[in-house]
């Protein structure tokens, strides 16, 4: 399963308050749309740390948190895959 799919599944199942039937799209603005709040952001950071060993809380820039796509790119960058 790709990082994007794993993130999508986690966010749709555990984070978004209004989990719509279509789930979370890869390019959907997470925070700016109001679907992810500060607590949700911490949940996502915790998931990323646990599953990918990446501490985005300390190294990430705000642009990394915009969408599932940008989160996945930040994880790959931190793991030296890009």
């Amino acid at each position, binding site marked *: 399963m790709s990082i994007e799919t794993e993130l999508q599944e986690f966010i749709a199942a555990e984070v978004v308050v209004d989990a719509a039937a279509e789930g979370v799209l890869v390019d959907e*603005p997470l*925070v*700016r*749309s*109001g679907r992810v*709040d*500060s*607590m949700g*952001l*911490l*949940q996502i950071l*915790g998931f990323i740390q646990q599953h990918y060993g990446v501490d985005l*809380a*300390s190294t*990430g*820039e*705000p*642009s990394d*948190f*915009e969408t599932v796509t940008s989160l996945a790119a930040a994880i790959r960058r931190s793991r030296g895959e890009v």
Partner: protein
Amino acid sequence: METLLDLIERGAVHAGAEKVAVRAGERGERSLTYGRLLEGARSIAGRLGRAGVGRGDRVGVWMEKSPATVQAILGILYAGAAYVPLDPRSPWRRCRTIAMDCGMSSLIVDALSLPSLPDLLDGWSPRLVLVDTGSEEARGALASQALRVPVETLAAAAAAAPDRQAARPSPEDLAYLLYTSGSTGTPKGVVHTHRSGTAFTRWVLERFAIRSDDIFSSHAPFHFDLSISDLYAALGAGATIHLIGTTEAMLAPYLVRKVPEWGITVWYSVPSILVAMLDRGGLERTGFGRVRILFFAGEVFPTPQLRRLRRALPGVGLYNLFGPTETNVCTYYEVPPDIPDDTTAPIPIGRACEHLETFVFDEDGQEVGEGVEGTLWARGGNLMQGYWNDHERTAASLQPDPRGRPGLAYCTGDHVKLLASGDYQFLGRRDHMIKTRGYRVELGEIESALTAHPDVLEAVVVPLPDPQLGNRLVASIVPRTGRQPSPGELRGFCTERLPLYMVPEQLEVLLAFPRTSTGKADRQALAHSWTTKEGV
């Protein structure tokens, strides 16, 4: 008397047209100089004026924070109207409720709001909608929407010829309406005039000797009253504002890295983000760059965490600013150079701001002095004009001065006690005072006991209605990073410090608290979660 615009124009003369007034972005790359900010604002005012917007009208601002948003706000003030900042992350239905409540005449939005516009405008016809489109793509999306109301881009309005005939507002005109969540669930609009906004801003400028070389952070969203100081004290001094965006505002380690880079000298936020910067951001290791003044407000700062902050920033002026949106700040307290290790009680809220008067009345309607509990009242230039369209609520809050002096005073609903030092101690909100097992209990006192535990970062106590006991007490806590105190251990810790009836029956340990859009711990969400769990 003067208006907020008089104040800003004086700051602009001091700063010079080429100085950056407002900026945003990771490197401050999006910016407006004083010259461009005010020129564009006057043009926006001209466009609003040609659409029929004028003195006393209310214009909504549903935008993320950006230099264009500040320009839009000033444009509304130049048109003589009042701005109504709407939470950019709130759903369109809430915006619509507010628009209907205040009879909003026009609206300024950004590209993010475009998909919601057809719903928001269904059956509502504002005189003009201005859209900060930002990109070609968004302009295309706007053009493709068949809206029945006049819609134009904000950029075109900001580039148009300013209307030289526009009537400037007077000090008594409305300047802004801030909607706060009412206890009934319906938002209530707190109305402030130029007079009250200016009175508060002048106090900040003078009391804290704000300088034109200061750089203000703007951490709070514009619908939160902390933004009033960020915007008008900064611009009134000819200083620079650095806007912190929604996502940036949540990332504590990022902020600890960036505040020194941005050269911030005046910081203002709720305690929550400062606690996160201490706990997860490493603020104690790195310091806070050039920050010389640090204001906090909106919540009680857990004393052990404030002690860490005090010791981490020895040369910085730390100030607890206190007051509801209705008065903006009414008292303030300068945190002393050290907070002893054995202090666990919250710090005082201090004394009245110099341009205000405060006093305390007890439940029997008697004015009380040192050492006696009562409700805090305030009067003076900062007071709101009232609640929009709610005379009953206004009359209940703004009352004839109970001491019999001419004029109105505001009953804050906050329980306080005057200390021998001349400072007020905050004892809690009247609506946080509950009865359990026949005792009157202040939830904040229990929260202070919990945050005194070395593993606890933050605590919220929730009362659950109970037919036998009045209320049962439960608590949610967030531990410090890497700590995992057990609920049993925490109850034991409370038992040593509180009477048994104040010890929470149940405790839960959370990764983080849900937050309101203003960054405070969301007590309603926590209560709802407990109620759901309990099946009450």
